[in-house]
């Protein structure tokens, strides 16, 4: 199984290889796409959680930063970026 975004190391750019659209609600999926999270896109996980929890996750998508929950990140498969 490919590594998933919720366990991807911080500060390392990865490419989205697959998103399990069926596992999330329509609204969730749409909001992800509106944030520019789609297959083939390059993203960088930046910050994860605080003192009490590993949730949420902040990502860089292009020039934008977005916050998602670990649960959603677990539905996103990532692969190393092409060298």
């Amino acid at each position: 199984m490919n590594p998933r975004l919720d366990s991807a190391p911080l500060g390392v750019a990865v490419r989205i290889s697959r998103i399990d659209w069926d596992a999330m609600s329509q609204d969730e999926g749409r909001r992800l796409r509106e944030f520019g999270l789609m297959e083939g896109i390059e993203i960088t996980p930046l910050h994860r959680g605080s003192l009490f929890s590993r949730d949420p996750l902040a990502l860089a998508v292009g020039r934008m930063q977005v916050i998602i929950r670990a649960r959603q990140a677990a539905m996103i498969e990532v692969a190393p970026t092409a060298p």
Partner: protein
Amino acid sequence: MTAAIPTIALAGNPNAGKSSLFNALTGARQKIANYPGVTVERKAGHASFADGRPLGLIDLPGSYSLTPASPDEAVTRDVLLGQQAGERRPDALVVVVDAANLDNHLCFALELIALGLPTVVALNMLDLATRDGLTLDPAILSRELGVPVVPTVAVRKRGLTDLLAAVDGAILSHQTQATAQSAPPPSDAALHQRAKAISRAATLCETPVRRWTGRVDNVVLHPVGGFILLVALMFVMFQAVFSWATPFADALEGGIGVIQTWVVDSFPDNFLRGLVVEGLLAGVGAVVVFLPQILILFLFILLLEASGYMTRAAFLMDGLMGKVGLSGRGFIPLLSSFACAVPGIMATRAIPDEKDRLTTILIAPLMTCSARMPVYTLIIGAFIPAQKVGGTPIGLQGLVLFGLFLSGIIGALLVALVLRRSVTKGNATGFMMEMPRYQWPRPADIAIALWQRAWIFLRRAGTIIAATTVILWLLLTFPQAPAGQSQVEYSIGGRIASGLEVVVAPIGFNHDIALALIPAMAAREVAVSAMATANAIDAGDNEEAMAEQLSDRIAGRWSIATALAFLAWFVFAPQCISTIAITKRETNGWKWPLFMVGYLFALAYAAAGITYWTAVAFGLG
């Protein structure tokens, strides 16, 4: 063209600088209301073209697409499609995009342009894009999008004249050409690809991003350090609310006293003078003195929001709030509720998940709002000795106050936990939001927002609170008691209070409290003004009694157990008409406000009872 003044709508993604552009175009000439039937704020204003012809502007809620994910976004879509009740379809559209985030913002822009309205794109925050090392060509962007593109820097009022001229031109040329193109809406992916291609084409030069925001975030979002910083900021904020406000509050109080004395000295003693001095001035004055505190709290909240920090705070709090079934999005409304639950509940509109939003609304009244401060301050001042705790510099009074704040927060978290497992059960869809870049808040934007908050508060003091105080004064003044009997006890109000006293006597409440609780349904702080009014009437012409401070008077009449029970009651009691009204509006019906009132009164009764019985058991009765 219609002879009517053209209406121009501002639309765009959240964080595109839309509100700043709206403020820059309209100045203070704006009006905030609600769209009828829904609870979304309608911001409208006026401006004029270069030749002086007037135009109307509306600032639509920020959205990511025309497929709405929240009530706010639904209004944006409906207004733009001309389906919003009571709202004419705008004559033209200004699409505001963040120059530094074209990849993303152009998606919504493309959707908006496809609507076929006369459209101009405002390429906003161009200065920040330049700071980030981007060089853009508006001409290429305009050619690719097929609409005029005007570079603007809203915070410096740059490009505004050009923008309005372009809008004028777009309206004129639109009439001469038929624009009937209704291609099927492209898929999200296609839209994104197109947006990206356009953005690439318009970008002349892109140096590696200077991660200024990134470097700040490494500190601010640090798992431990960031959290400590957040707690420290909150601490400073609450300290400031109490210490900075004191001189202003004292000045206001002094001012009201001067007016009271002047009225007493200038007019003969009659019915009207009593009403004004004992009713209106005593009652409304007791509330208006809290304006400085409310404004300072709002100043902090507005600054944190405008700078981009609030989203970081939401990020840090999300993990914790997720444990009780809320999301970090709820942090901002709940923090605002410390000032007042009404704007707090209104701010829940940004929470997309319905159950999450409802839970946040239901617990918002548990945050210690500024209206409780008069009550807490009065009782603490009267009963808690002003001494230090065991040799530390921490004052006992401050500690009790902190304990009351904390009880509210813990109560709210527990209630949320229970609600999310019962009445508002459902999957937490989570927390998805954009993290804006840091920027300096624009003083004029802050000033406008502060003024609007102050106005809402003063209007409330001038209407609801003034009316209840006057009614209470009348109830307490009639019928006139025969000599030797207490006027307050004898009056209609006193008799109603005696009835209520039967219900609240088991939890240690006396006649004074029963009397204060009824008008305090309108607003919690009225409890204080009601006691002040009753005190003033009871004192009558007795100069000595008149001079006696309200706090001294109740300190002599109440037991400590009763005072503590009264404090515990106000941690929970939903005594605020405005909160109930806003909850009805925000939840579209009476079901949830009634539920809220019911569960909060039950909690208040239980909390006051437990406090009283415990205190009595410890010999404080």
